[in-house]
């Protein structure tokens, strides 16, 4: 059988990078919040980042179903939502761990030991500290990733655990944080 050429694959559409979410159900509360947010702008499309945040807060990532809902809400083309999910680093295309550990890697934090801290998290969680992008521990409890400057360079190294912000994090504090998280039911 001959290999498909560069051009012959045209019939096969590129796979949508977003995961499916069979549990995507929009509550009345989310509908109301969405309507409120849309009312803040003269043009509906402007609300898209805010809706993506609302979805990710509730469902953990942006699924194909979530995009379909936003598309209908804002009367947009699916590609115009998808291209945002792939552009803005905060939006996740796949589920992540229950606790997302974001370690700042930019200069002031690097000088303050961010790479050592990242290595520490990775080795404790059985992750590869050389791998690119977000990694999730086998038990699904933790995701670890490097992020860029979190605007707290005076208290390096800094870390975000979900929405909580931690300053001047030592490896010992990292261990305590992980222990604390493990006690929280998933």
């Amino acid at each position, binding site marked *: 059988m001959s290999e498909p050429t560069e051009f012959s694959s045209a019939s096969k559409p590129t796979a949508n990078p977003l995961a499916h979410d069979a549990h995507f159900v929009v509550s009345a509360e989310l509908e109301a919040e969405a309507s409120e947010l849309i009312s*803040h*702008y*003269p*043009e509906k*499309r*402007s*609300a*898209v*980042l*805010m809706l*993506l*945040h609302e979805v990710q807060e509730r469902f953990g990532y942006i699924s194909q179903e979530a995009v379909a809902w936003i598309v209908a809400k*804002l009367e*947009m083309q699916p590609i*115009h939502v998808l*291209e*945002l999910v792939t*552009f*803005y*680093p*905060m*939006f996740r295309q796949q589920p992540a761990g229950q606790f997302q550990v*974001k370690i700042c*890697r*930019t*200069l*002031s934090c*690097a*000088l303050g030991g961010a790479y050592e801290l990242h290595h520490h998290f990775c080795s404790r969680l059985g992750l590869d500290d050389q791998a690119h992008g977000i990694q999730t521990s086998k038990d699904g409890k933790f995701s670890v990733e490097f*992020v*860029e*400057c*979190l*605007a*707290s*360079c*005076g*208290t*390096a190294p800094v870390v*975000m655990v979900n*929405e909580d*912000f931690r300053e001047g994090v030592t490896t010992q504090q990292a261990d305590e944080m992980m222990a604390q998280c493990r006690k929280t039911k998933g």
Partner: protein
Amino acid sequence: MPQEFRLILKNIDQPGYTNDIECYLRHGGYEALKQAIVLKPKALPDGKIQTGPEQIRDEVKASGLRGRGGAGFSAGLKWSFVDRRSGKPIYLICNADESEPGTFKDRQILHKDPHQLIEGMVISCYANDVKLAYIYVRGEFPDAARILKKALADARAQGFLGKNILGSGYDLEIFIHRGAGAYICGEETGLIESLEGKRAYPRIKPPYFPAILGLYMCPTIVNNVETLCHVRHIITLGAAKYAQLGTPNNTGTRIVSLSGHVKRPGYYEIEVGKVSLGQLINGANFGGGLRDGRSLKAIIPGGSSSKVFRAGEKFKLKRKGADGQMVTVDVDLLDLPYDFDSLQAAGSMSGSSAVIVLDDSTDIVKALANLSEFYAHESCGQCTPCREGSLWMSKALHRMTHGGARKQDADYLIKTATNIQGRTICAFGEACAWPVISFINKFREEFEAKGEADEAKSGTSH
């Protein structure tokens, strides 16, 4: 000994000071707005009548206030460029994206004194006939977004925002818009695209100057958090008194974010130009000096995009002599007044007023590699020189810091950087080129030594 001068940070971090509206009101909050909104039309000497908003715009111009976000452009002048005859609505956006590496001053205001920003914004909006404004908060500040949301609701409940503000007949709404982790949203036209629900691709200027074709192609003002806070103080103090703070052409106060190898990193508010770089780093009430046993190697004076200074550098600066004539004087790096003009005259910039200090333990090639990785990650990708060049530079520096340096790398990096600057849609092109150009020009021997050492080890030479 020079001291901090806390105007914006006056209440922040004081015992018992909280971010709720009652606390703000107890500390004289919204008094400037009350004063501004009742300004009566005034007859000028030439017989023209000047409205209240026009008077505020004049005050801001007379105060000499320069933008605190990065470019240091006159706020009054920026406001004067707004197209007021188009018949379109005028928008104002507060840039709370705070994402220039090294910078952490707006964070303090947003979390600890949100009403100061809101008051500054309402006055600025009133002065510019703005009816709808946004605060663009970076996505990684979820707490700030919540705090601001509550603060806006409280301000609305007390009549400082919404319909018929303080009975004046003036209506204004302010909403929060959250970014999602992209540095380029700090660039004002990228920010506007992002607010329109698109990728944050900066727009080309001309023709898309925000003052004429901004948000929804309407005239738009984009100002930094700290800039807008200053407006409140300009009203309270009056332009003349405000302009006495700081130094000529560099008026007022400024919050400096100090990080890296100092004993007391933190945010320090100073009168612009009244404190030197050396005092900021070594002063007991500022950085407190380097760690014990360490000496200074380099200073990044205005956020990661500013050109680096090497310890021991001297500059020739023009100063007004005692007789009023301009004379050229020699100024040591550490004696450079921390202001807009001196740092520019010394070949760098005060940018976002973020000072990153590097001591002699720093591997300079590694430090540049770190910054270049940031820019490679953050390029929006519209312009080929920036998208490709930032990645080439980062890859070369990665190789150099992983045992594969070559002697000609320094020249290669300079060539790449030089081919980016001036050839891109937005100033990110310069932001990613300048660190490379300045690090290599000032520490060339370290880049070359790495190349020689690695080539000797692998037995190759090119």
